[in-house]
């Protein structure tokens, strides 16, 4: 029992609340300090982390609502360690962005940003299903305000659509979770939503199937994957840039993370039942996202649709039920976040140099007067298209290898996505940085603030490309343990099939 995770969890929220009551603009320093403090704490945790252990570390386990069997249970293992790191890292530049810009109602913006950090951290740390759902839903509240309050264009429509889509999923998941808790409870036993307890108790095969489906809807909407991505275009167009970076870079990971944390270990038979369907959805998302990314003129929409493809890759890796695939998925979750956050901030910088335009038709020729911007953009682009030498390359290769082992056809189709990524990302880079100078462009290089927000992230991408083993060695044990139940179920299924065959 340690209190460390609770400190990390509630530090931003506390700073946000107190900051909201401080006079003038002084509250921003407090929020910024808390964000940096969280990052420092997480770095210490990274160093202190016992890499060989598959189980949870820094566990906090306390009663919260005994009547409903909900416990305040937090823990870190290889699976969420780097998700916490990603959250802590991403929030710093975005908070910086908000602190040093003329922002309408800045204190409220920072409060929402801080609340969002707490909620996302909580969702990643939670080891109790109900607690996970609490944070999962709580995430929506600050983002609802951030998009609706500071967005552009049809922002209210967009943010309402975003919340309705996401909450439809997560409320269905709530119903599924309650059903899971009730069904798993033995006669006369006390209901519990603790993931460890649920995994131990197990749920009957038949009921697992539809519960998995309810969870999948929630996670697919959040990710988003192909048929449930309807909120993407409007929301991405209206969201302010730093919020979008967080939405796409960090929030989308909560969905796929949920599969590894909850669905696969607790409901292995149900996961196996839908494996084929989910793989098809993943592959379809890869193709759909890539094709749409190719056909977009708006730079941020290119990145938006490429995210759908990337999350398709991650889902594919998870549902291959192979060690390599899952490892690749976990690595890629980190990689995608680290790439998308600077990419969106760069897009913000680009738009600032083109009177707010984000269309490739009006952009071009920026590199000449903004070499640093171009260089950073190039590095991020290379990482996105998984250039050999980048950590994304390692991630995607692991995922594809995992898929090749058992699902060769899907793997081959998915590889097409890798090629398409090269095409659309290079297209965007060329048409913004090179070519003729666009009509709206007034290029100049990055200022101190932009540099401070973007450069460290790009440096991190490079560092990770050099030494991806840093991540893999820490995530390995936990990831393998999480997919083990599903692998066993699959093996049992095969044995049964063989026994039935004459």
């Amino acid at each position, binding site marked *: 029992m340690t209190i460390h995770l609770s400190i990390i969890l509630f530090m931003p929220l506390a700073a946000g609340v107190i900051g909201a009551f401080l006079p003038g603009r002084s509250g921003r320093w407090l929020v910024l300090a808390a964000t940096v403090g969280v990052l420092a704490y997480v770095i210490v945790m990274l160093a202190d982390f016992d890499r060989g252990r598959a189980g949870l570390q820094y566990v906090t386990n306390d009663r919260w609502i005994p*009547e409903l069997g909900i416990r305040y249970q937090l823990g870190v293992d290889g699976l969420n360690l780097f998700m916490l790191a990603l959250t802590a890292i991403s929030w710093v530049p975005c908070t910086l962005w908000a602190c040093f810009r003329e922002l309408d109602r800045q204190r409220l913006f920072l409060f929402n940003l801080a609340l969002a950090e707490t909620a996302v951290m909580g969702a990643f740390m939670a080891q109790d299903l109900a607690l996970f759902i*609490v*944070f999962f839903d709580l995430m*929506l*509240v600050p983002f609802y305000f951030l998009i*609706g*309050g500071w967005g552009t264009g049809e*922002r209210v429509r967009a943010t309402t659509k975003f919340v309705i889509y996401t909450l439809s999923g997560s409320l269905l998941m709530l119903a599924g979770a*309650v059903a899971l808790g*009730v069904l798993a409870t033995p006669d006369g036993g006390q209901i519990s939503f603790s993931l460890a307890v649920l995994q131990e108790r197990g749920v009957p095969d038949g009921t697992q199937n539809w519960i998995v489906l309810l969870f999948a809807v929630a996670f697919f909407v959040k990710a988003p994957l192909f048929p449930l991505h309807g909120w993407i275009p409007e929301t991405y167009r209206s969201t302010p840039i730093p919020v979008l970076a967080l939405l796409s870079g960090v929030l989308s990971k909560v969905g796929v993370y949920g599969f590894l944390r909850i669905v696969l270990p607790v409901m292995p038979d149900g996961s196996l039942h839908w494996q084929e369907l989910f793989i098809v959805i993943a592959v379809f998302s890869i193709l759909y996202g890539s094709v749409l990314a190719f056909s977009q003129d708006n730079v941020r929409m290119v990145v938006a649709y490429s995210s759908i493809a990337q999350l398709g890759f991650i889902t594919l890796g998870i549902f291959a039920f192979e060690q390599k695939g899952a490892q690749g998925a976990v690595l890629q979750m980190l990689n995608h976040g680290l790439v998308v956050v600077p990419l969106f901030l760069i897009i913000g910088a680009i738009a600032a140099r083109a009177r707010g335009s984000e269309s490739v038709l009006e952009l071009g020729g920026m590199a000449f007067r903004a070499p640093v911007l171009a260089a950073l953009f190039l590095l991020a682009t290379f990482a996105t298209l998984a250039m050999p030498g980048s950590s994304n390359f390692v991630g995607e290769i692991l995922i594809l290898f995992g898929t090749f082992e058992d699902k060769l056809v899907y793997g081959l189709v998915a590889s097409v996505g890798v090629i398409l990524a090269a095409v659309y990302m290079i297209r965007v880079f060329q048409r913004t940085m090179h070519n003729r100078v666009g009509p709206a462009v007034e290029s100049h290089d990055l200022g101190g603030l932009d540099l401070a927000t973007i450069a460290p992230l790009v440096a991190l991408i490079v560092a990770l490309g050099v030494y991806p083993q840093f991540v893999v060695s820490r995530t390995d044990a936990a990831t393998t343990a999480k997919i083990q139940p599903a692998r066993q179920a699959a093996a049992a299924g095969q044995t049964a099939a063989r026994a039935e065959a004459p």
Partner: protein
Amino acid sequence: MSLADVTAPVIDYKAISPLLATLGGSIVVLMVGLFRGPLVRRVLVPALTAVSLLTAIGLVIWVWRRGDIAPVIRGSLEVDSLALGITVLCCVAGLVAVALSWRDNAVREAGAGEYHSLLLGSVSGMIVLAEASNLVTLFVGIELLSIPLYVLCATELRRRTSLEAGLKYLVIGSVGSATLLYGLALVYGATGQTGFAQISDALGDTVPLGDPLLLTGVALVATGLAFKASVAPFHQWTPDVYQGAPTPITTFMAVATKAAAFAIFLRIFDHALGLLQLDWGPALSALAVISIVIGNVGAIPQRSLKRMLAWSSVAQAGYLLTGVVVGTRLGLQATAFYLAVYLIMNVAAFAVVVARERVSNRGDDISALENLGQEQPWLAWPMTIAMLSLAGFPPTAGFIGKFYLIDASVSGDYTWLGIAIVVGSVISLAYYLRVIAAMWMGRYEIELPTVPRRTVKPASGWSPEADALAQPEVLVVAVVFAALTLIVGIWPDPLFDAARDVGTALSNLS
């Protein structure tokens, strides 16, 4: 038979002391209200009303009991933890109504003494209803709670909609009462008993469960109570009456009537008619689903906040009904818990409506909230929290309440009702979020083509100068109840303890 042979029933005065406090208060307030002078009507009468309600709450705490039941007056009233819990809710709702109407037009026009006396009378009716343990006291309770409300709805004498609301409520309420009475008569005819416990014993023993007379009676009772609890499809009066009535009375009606009506729902269906669960279960679950859908869909096109909250209360009645349908102890606890939560979050929302109505020339239109986030954050935050709670976001009380109800329905093998709650919550986002958007997300025209935007005179208080002063108590109510919404959402243990105590009532439940 000489008079000496008549033995008066033994009365446990301790058990019914909360009821005596409100009934006595009602009479005293009426008398005091006869004196003239601003001090009497502005200070003395509201203060006495509040004292009476606070006394009742204090007495409830004094007699609070678990499990054991005190039959009072030969079994016509039954004081158990369910009745006491509901009594507290109704008294709190009454206190809120006193605070919100402190400087309201309605009080001046109707006369302070009469207004408050009627309010206390209605609270007494609710307490009787919550404690009723036979068919006769049930009906007495229903009428005692309804008749003062018919009058209270019409207390803003110079506003036509208020009078209209009163009349409408009277007509439809009477239809509901008549239906209920007819049903009660049939149940009595079939079983030959009026006491709930005796009816429960007679069922399956001397009366066959499939007796058509009995089933018709049960159906009519369900219909009559559905009118009172505004369960769809018997909800048509709700939006009009909620909108027309003075807002403090709307607040009181929305939260207290619902609590009392659901208390009797629980008592009569889960206790007296518990053995017929297979017969009324499907019917009530159908009503629940219809309420959830109609209430939530009906709220979407509303511009008026009071109408929107009225439709939302129809939907909430549907959620609450799921706790009755399952007919388990967990269902009883979840219903009681949600009633408390429902009170807290609705009071916060209505208080903000009251505050805006008094100063804005948009009345209770949603545009009255425009940009409130910047102008009056102390009003905007309570409304925001109330809306998030009504929509079921964590960490608010509404989330826990819904979690509990879903838990109860899944445990009671009504998983599909749990899904219905979930689907209803998703639909409800469409209108709850709009309110938040109006407050925080700058000026934008809400597209609701069906109802034109209108301008009204602010529903002023004693005088224009007093309007500004009229806000503090309203503000306090809003902030306190919004804070409670958050506190219960984060630390629900005390409320769970109370719900568990309430759950010890109705001994036949499993």
